[in-house]
């Protein structure tokens, strides 16, 4: 009884919507009027598989997701490690709040401020100028930096939780048995925290794959999201078919993540 409301809402509205989208991928478009014709066809999928543009864009998006994930993991690790094993309990809870807060500060606002900061006369160039360097500007590298910034908290929190769950006695045992700290780190800490990194990467990956605002805003490049967004008004069936690419990638990713034990770290 309690479930009827929520379940009805989620199943009918949300899963129903996903199903409509899935169906739309098999609809046809009238070539002259762009009207959607409800006849079944596989043309949309054929187009996506055959046109090199779609393949290039998909590959560009997936590699960006990989680079962003790596950068986030590298940036997140020292902070997460500090929070979990060095900071006092009080500092730790303050740091958790400090990491959580920007997560809620608004995606678009952060995207906008990065656009401002990366400008020719923006903050980034101003900071780097004394060192004789200049920032990435509105390039793929600038886009990578912005993505890395936006999804960073999603990576810090799972890694922190994962590190916190490692019993200190394990690390001490390793040290007692004569392992140096570098060896302990690689042989004990890293394998134990790896599922947590994978858990964080689910977010960084999924968010990068689905983003349709940043690529146009920062680098003027085509990504899966921007292509879907560009097509959805005129050619919903093609857009819907292309939307199945991130869904398929994420499904595969989630299955692998599950095998690696990432779900226990979520």
């Amino acid at each position, binding site marked *: 009884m*309690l479930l009827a409301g929520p*379940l009805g809402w989620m199943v009918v509205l949300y899963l129903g919507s996903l199903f409509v989208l899935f169906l739309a991928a098999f609809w046809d478009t009238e070539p002259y009027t762009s009207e959607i014709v409800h006849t079944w066809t596989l043309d949309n999928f054929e187009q996506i598989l055959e046109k090199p543009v779609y393949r290039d864009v998909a590959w560009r998006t997936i590699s960006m997701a990989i680079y962003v994930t790596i950068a986030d993991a590298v940036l997140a690790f*020292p902070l997460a490690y500090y929070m979990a*094993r060095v900071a006092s309990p009080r500092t730790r809870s303050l740091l958790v709040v400090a990491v959580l807060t920007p997560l809620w500060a*608004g995606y678009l606002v952060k995207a*906008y401020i990065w656009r401002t900061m990366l400008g020719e006369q923006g903050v980034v160039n101003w900071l780097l100028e004394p060192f004789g360097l200049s920032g990435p500007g509105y390039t793929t590298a600038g886009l990578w930096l912005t993505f890395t910034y936006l999804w960073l908290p999603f990576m810090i929190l799972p890694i922190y939780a994962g590190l916190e769950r490692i019993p200190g006695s394990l690390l001490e045992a390793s040290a007692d048995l004569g392992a140096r700290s570098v060896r302990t780190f690689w042989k004990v800490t890293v394998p134990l925290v790896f599922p947590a990194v994978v858990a964080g990467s689910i977010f960084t990956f999924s968010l990068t794959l689905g983003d349709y605002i940043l690529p146009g805003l920062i680098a003027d490049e085509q990504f899966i*999201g921007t292509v879907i967004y560009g097509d959805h008004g005129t050619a919903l069936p093609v857009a819907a078919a292309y939307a199945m690419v991130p869904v398929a990638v994420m499904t595969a990713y989630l299955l692998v993540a599950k095998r690696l034990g990432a779900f226990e770290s979520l």
Partner: protein
Amino acid sequence: MVESRVTRVVLRLGAGATLAFIYLPLVVIAIYAFNENISQTWPIEHYTTKWFGVAWRDESVRGALWTSVKAALGATAIALVLGTLASMAVSRYRFFGKETISFLVILPIALPGIITGLALQATILNVLTPLGISFSIWTIIIGHGTFCIVVIYNNAVARIRRLSGSLEEASVDLGADAWQTFRFVTFPQLRTALLAGGLLAFALSFDEVVVTIFTSGAQQTLPIWIFTNFARPRELPIVNVVALFVVVASIIPVWIALRVAGGTGLTSDRRGGEGLSALDAEP
């Protein structure tokens, strides 16, 4: 402590650098709101508070603010009702497919936003419009409500797990009906968790844009107002003010929520709850 002195110093530096990276842009947006110049060059030469007044008097900004508030309130209300019901069902009863519920409520934020947005739009166009619900504040509320359920649900489930069911059993044994039990026994124990979840849902809805673009039609929420205006150089000073406002308006409810219940609901209860226990207002 296994970590050597050197390691700890390096870690502290690394942690500091990452924190600085996280906060630099937020500081920058706060400073830009006081920039007198229309061009957005750095460093800023003159400071002023005049753009706050300009933004406040701007009709389109006010309209967007009002839409955002209505949408966030509506979405929070829907999420509160549905999220609470689902959490109680999952925590108190055993039934077929119980595991799927958590998965189902988290799906709207786990799938890329464009998928959720596009799916909802396809439904609005193909199913709801023929039924008489076309793009309006209601379609925004429906969309936001769908992805806000998860924060209420997670907060409530975490709280119920810490409560024992015996109080409710006692209430029923003493002759209270289901509604009385909920009203006088369950609800008071859930109140702070629901308040925290509600505040987070409000914050989540208030700054959402990825899904909103697909469900709003011609309506403008504050984030959409920013989205349509940051390509216009002359509007940028107002955009800065609105951006700062959105940041503050989303952070304040989150801080209150963290103090009230010590969880965020976006990430799992274990993490938020434990890490924030020092801030937990309750024993």
